[in-house]
């Protein structure tokens, strides 16, 4: 049985209450919208790129505790990293929340982001955790259109 305390760890609840880098980034040279139609989570990600490096990053938006905490932790993790490093983390994070990468036994670059691995036991919440990462990925790729987790709503 999935463990609630694994999902809602203190660190995650703390990031939800006091999200880091939660602001408009005036110096941003890239801006990307992300949207999860299932629960209406919406996020705007701001990147200040200096060549291949993420000089600064911030976000704004509304969402559940998981999506907010994940976005907050992501901004803290990728600030100062290169585009290639951030893409590696995106790929590893994605595999972790889908249960395809065990951060305890396999080599990875996730660091503190490991704390979100509990999401893999809650399939309905994987998209919440990965929304900010998909948005970052699109921003790094320089895509223009907004990102959706593409989860169709299921009616009434």
């Amino acid at each position, binding site marked *: 049985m999935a463990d609630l305390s694994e999902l809602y760890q203190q660190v995650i609840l703390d990031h939800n209450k006091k999200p880091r880098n939660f602001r408009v980034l005036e110096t941003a040279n890239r801006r990307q919208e992300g949207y999860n139609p299932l629960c209406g989570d919406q996020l705007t990600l701001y990147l200040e790129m200096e060549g291949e490096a993420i000089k600064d990053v911030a976000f704004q938006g509304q969402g*559940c505790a*998981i999506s907010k905490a994940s976005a907050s932790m992501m901004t803290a993790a990728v600030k100062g990293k290169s585009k290639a490093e951030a893409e590696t983390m995106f790929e590893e994070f994605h595999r972790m929340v889908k249960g395809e990468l065990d951060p305890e036994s396999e080599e990875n670059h996730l660091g503190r982001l490991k704390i979100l691995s509990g999401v893999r036991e809650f399939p309905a919440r994987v998209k919440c955790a990965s929304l900010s990462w998909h948005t970052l990925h699109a921003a790094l790729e320089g895509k223009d259109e907004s990102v959706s987790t593409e989860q169709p*709503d299921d*009616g009434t």
Partner: protein
Amino acid sequence: MSAAVGREAAPIENNFDVERIRKDFPILNEKIHGRPLVYLDNAATSQKPQMVIDALTRYYAEQNSNIHRGVHYLSQLATREYEDARVKIQHFINAADSHEIIFTSGTTAGINLVALSYGRKFVHAGDEIIISTMEHHSNIVPWQMLCEQTGATLRIIPINDAGELLIDEFAAMLSSKVKLVAVAHISNALGTINPVKRIIELAHSHDIPVLIDGAQAAPHLKVDVRDLDCDFYAFSGHKLCGPTGIGTLYGKSHWLEAMPPVFGGGDMIASVSFEKTTYNSLPYKLEAGTPNIEGGIGLGVAIDYLNSIGLDKIAAYEQELLDYATETIGAIPGVTLIGTAREKASVLSFTIDGIHPHDIGTILDQEGIAVRAGHHCAQPVMKRFGVPATARASFAFYNTKEEIDALAEGIQKTIEVFS
């Protein structure tokens, strides 16, 4: 109907045997995450009684055949069962004729059918269609699409802070430009029971036809389309203890006669040649192709089941549940109820301070409690209340006060997790 006879005299609370009713629903014995299922997502879909499940199995095991085609025994049997279901639906909503009952895949399909058929014929550039702030997306988007195609304008009836339609404002919107009014009988997101009879009267005084989205109403109160005098009434089988993929569009004969078919194919024609095709009569003109036969039969059985309990008794019992839930859940500090209309059906939409509904949904799920978290396919009404989403508990006649207590405990636990 016969099962209800003989219990009529006793007061409602004495003869509504919810424990006996629960035995009819096998899924209510399921354990979710090791706990008994508390199913409070009935506005999304209802659970199915054993007799409906059995009817589907029996159809495929003993009766399966295509309808309206064969001279052989099974085809005649399947045709009879399917057409009997149409008559049951006719009586269920008190339609004047069974040919006014068009089988669809559900409420969404019924509304789209009217938009595509009535809309294309009768709605033109400069015309107006009126809907309300509290509509489900399926009673918004088809009209937006029609407006885009025709150059008509969509107008929206506003609501007050309780989630009630502002009828005076609606009355002021009526004019000869308005070609259709389309409103929900009961709001899926708020539970508001709209004064549809009054709305229909007002619209008819300007000769404007009215479509009622009955998806939430048909399972919870006695619908009488002739008393309402609505021109169209759409509802779904799956919210009514029936199977998914089947529903009904009721339309007054003269409107259905005037409407061109949307889909062409088998069953909807009288004769076909390459020079000219003659359409079939109602209801078949609007039902092209092999239909959802087992769905129609299953819906007929679901209606038999609901009739055996009685819609009036169901409505009264659900009102008790709603009153109890409103009191119990509404009293929890930090909980805000969204939708507090005076006339409400058994829907309780709520938010908790500082906790996103999706997190509420996950924590309640771990307790075995199924609620809906999200915008309920009604984003405009969420916006009206200034929330991105709500958690929604929706009750059916097989729910109990003990289950509402379990919901209250689950909400307390959610608040503790986030404290």
